[in-house]
């Protein structure tokens, strides 16, 4: 065992006992290593033994730092920041349901504010008694950045809040200290009458798909990451299903192994969408997932070993501040108007900001709606989201051997419907096209590839 501690994102001090967070992240990390070893050995992850892991872990690019010590010369580098405005929204433009207006020609700014359940497969939420639940969230804000605006009586924006904190962090904290989560909710929503039970899913949350399948989302009594207070007035943490720390760990992990096509050719990772379809690490329609995967994979090909840098987190990387001007459309907004209320280091390349607020000081007698983005008044909060970027960090070091480690087959591919990609085993719906031929062979009966495809259950709320 190595002396390593997983600290809370941004070195926050929410946990009474920091070991609880460490334990949660340790489990996540071990899950990923198990999954990678399963891939190498062509086994079902449930069948991977401790001996298997001991034998294989030294070859993997991804390192469990609680087991293998990070060498002294390792460097911590930021993954290239990606735009916080969802690429999936941009790709669906122009939006037929949002006709052009003077301040939103494409419809993107209205589309991105959508509240709904698009982040889950078609179906309905129910509790354990089969009562239907309506749990809309910011389902299109899927780049690990979500936001909310506070408006005055005239509809003018007086405060904008951006968050990059995974809901699973709050779920883990809730298990240890419900009162601390309640405190944070009261502080960030301004609703002093909130109670712990307002944040709980007393009878659990399940997704009943159209084919009748029932999937557990939240266990009875656990934290409800889709609670309405995080949406309105909001905002405390990320809400979109894919915006979790667990997803980040998973993505960094599945990208940490060489991938080959059916022909045996090594994937060079140049096409980020192709790589993500191959390793099934996330949503290829986003900016974040393909880019994280691509950059992690570049470490593999560069003969590095790596782990997600402590404290593991998704962070607001920065603000393209030149894009936000005072009403004269010439002068930059002072940096002091931006306030990092969780995390720190906003104006540095190593920013670990988790929550960022923009507010005009009262003495200025202005609202955010008076400010200018691209020459226009701020009428939609998405105008500001386009100026923000998100990043994460890895700690890496060169392998001692001249090797990239094990190379395994792709576990999936993607089909293209219109301008959207979706994961596939090689079979596409009618009228759709196989986006990346050659990643997988002809679809096989489910039993024959179960060892590769099955992933361990996530330990947090996904």
């Amino acid at each position, binding site marked *: 065992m190595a002396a390593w501690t997983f600290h809370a994102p941004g070195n926050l001090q929410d946990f009474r006992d920091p070991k609880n967070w460490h334990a949660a992240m340790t489990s996540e990390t071990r899950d990923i290593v198990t999954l990678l070893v399963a891939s190498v050995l062509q086994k079902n992850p449930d069948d991977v033994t401790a001996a298997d892991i001991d034998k294989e872990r030294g070859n993997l690019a991804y390192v469990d730092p609680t087991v293998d010590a990070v060498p002294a010369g390792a460097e*911590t580098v930021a993954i290239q920041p990606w735009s916080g405005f969802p690429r999936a929204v941009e790709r669906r433009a122009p939006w037929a349901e949002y006709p*052009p207006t003077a301040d939103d020609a494409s419809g993107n700014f209205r589309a991105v504010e959508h509240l709904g359940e698009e982040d889950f497969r078609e179906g309905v939420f129910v509790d354990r008694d089969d009562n239907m639940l309506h749990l809309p969230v910011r389902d299109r804000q899927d780049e690990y950045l979500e936001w909310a605006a506070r408006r005055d009586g005239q509809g003018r924006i007086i405060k904008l809040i951006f968050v990059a904190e995974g809901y699973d962090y709050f779920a883990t904290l809730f298990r240890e200290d419900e009162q601390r989560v309640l405190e944070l909710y009261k502080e960030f929503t301004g609703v002093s009458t909130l109670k712990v039970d307002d944040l709980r899913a007393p009878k659990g949350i399940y997704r009943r798909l159209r084919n009748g399948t029932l999937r557990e989302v939240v266990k009875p009594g656990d934290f409800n990451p889709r609670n309405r207070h995080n949406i309105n007035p909001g905002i405390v943490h990320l809400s979109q299903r894919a915006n979790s720390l667990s997803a980040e760990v998973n993505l960094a992990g599945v990208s940490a192994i060489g991938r080959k096509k059916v022909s045996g050719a090594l994937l060079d990772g140049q096409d980020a969408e192709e790589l993500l379809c191959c390793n099934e690490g996330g949503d290829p329609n986003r900016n974040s997932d393909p880019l994280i995967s691509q950059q992690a994979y570049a470490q593999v090909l560069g003969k590095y070993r790596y782990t997600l840098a402590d404290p593991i987190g998704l962070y607001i990387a*920065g603000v393209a501040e030149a894009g936000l001007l005072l009403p004269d459309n010439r002068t930059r907004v002072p940096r002091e108007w931006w306030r990092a209320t969780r995390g720190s280091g906003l104006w540095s390349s190593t920013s670990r900001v988790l929550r960022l607020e923009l507010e005009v000081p009262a003495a200025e007698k202005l609202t955010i709606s008076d400010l200018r983005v691209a020459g226009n008044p701020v009428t939609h909060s998405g105008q500001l989201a386009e100026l923000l970027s998100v990043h994460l960090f890895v700690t890496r070091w060169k392998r001692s051997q001249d090797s990239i480690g094990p190379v395994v087959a792709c576990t999936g591919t993607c089909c293209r419907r219109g301008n959207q990609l979706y994961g596939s085993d090689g079979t596409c719906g009618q009228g759709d096209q196989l986006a990346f031929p050659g990643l997988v062979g002809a679809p096989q009966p489910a039993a024959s590839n179960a060892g590769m495809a099955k992933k361990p259950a996530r330990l947090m709320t996904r």
Partner: protein
Amino acid sequence: MSERPLELDDIQGNILAGFNTNVQVFHALTVVSADAFPEACRWLAEQAGAITTVAEVRAARGSMKQGLSEAAPTWLFLAVGSRVLSRTQPDLRIRDDAFNGGMENRAPGVLGDKTDPAHWAVGGTSNPVDVLLVLASNNEAAAVARGELLVASAGKVGLRLSYREVGRRLPGEIEHFGFRDGLSQPSIAGFEAGGEHGAGNFVFGYQRSKGEAPYAPSPDERQIADNGSLLVLRRLRQDVAAFQRFCAAEAQRLSARWPGVRPGHLAALLVGRWPSGAPATTRDADDPGASPADNQFHFDTDPDGAACPFGAHIRKVNPRKGPRDKVNVPRLLRRGIPFGRPAAQDPAGERGLLFVAFQTSIKEQFEFLSEHWMNSDDRPASTTHGHAHDLLVGSNDGAKSMTIAGPQGAVEVSRAEQEWIVPTGGAYLFAPGRRGLAKFSKPASKLGLWRVKKVWAIALDTVKPGRR
């Protein structure tokens, strides 16, 4: 979905083929009063048969190269501004915030411009570009003469000449700093063998990526925008002496940590290419004298910016296969041409580049490259501890720095407020296809679906259901 063949006899020639003539005379026209728009539109529609299509450029390219007589052929390109569309073609909405907002409005915040649009040489607050005419020829007199005729004709319908400038190619296809320009152009599927980029990235009505639906404005019931493109015109003044002084001074300053570094090498690293067009690296101190024939080189073998700095201009605007922060790299079809005499011939004169670029989304293509990459310190890629400002073109407040991996360790090249490329005007325009332009004289149906959609949009905007 099968790909639609490109309609080369309808798309304007400068968009896909590029005029590539020795001379291009630019004319900006401004509608003198609101009631002149309808008549101006009729005049525009009359020009539909005169604009040069891609097919015509291709057919006449050979003769153009030899045509230096008075009767030399001239080619016409035409584009219109957002005022023309919004006032006369209400059933068409270009769904691009940049085009609708206008360059002068967005230049300070998006492009980082410091110059006042009220004083621009072309466009700006007092001289909006409603119509742009470009006459291309290898014979300057012929282009000038045809331009004068068109301007005189336009004047009769309330189109005032607000700007005229002659662009001339410099020997060796260089721009005024001495570097070969326009080398790297996206190859277009359906237009050239092995084309990589969907035509819909540059022309409305085609796929942007394979398998996608055609990309087109909506609403556009009469298909006015079909085969059209969005144009960025940007007049960039270049201060050659200031650029050379900077490179010389920085080479001198860095000589202790980088013995023997020459100003020319530093300039090449700022650009990312040598004057010949060959890719520049920290390792090679001399211009190899020729660019790769197929322009095929990539940065995937240079993931840390050790050979070509992340801040080098060509790496900022096209990271090729190197690290980046965006899945789809936005591309432009660049058709610029220098203006002004070379500095050696006329040191006191004004010179620069008439930057011209075509795309189907100014916001997602030109503006993205400018705001998020060229004007950024760390995008599309950088190292955690390095700076990656585009010192050549990027615009930022305060000091800017580029980290270069010198032979004895990283060095910083920095500049303060000194600007050697200064924007002095421009406009966002729409270049219609021949058929679309011919429809300008026909009024939109008063009861069309477009009007229902417009009312719907206004109603939705009033309710603002998504606002929180």
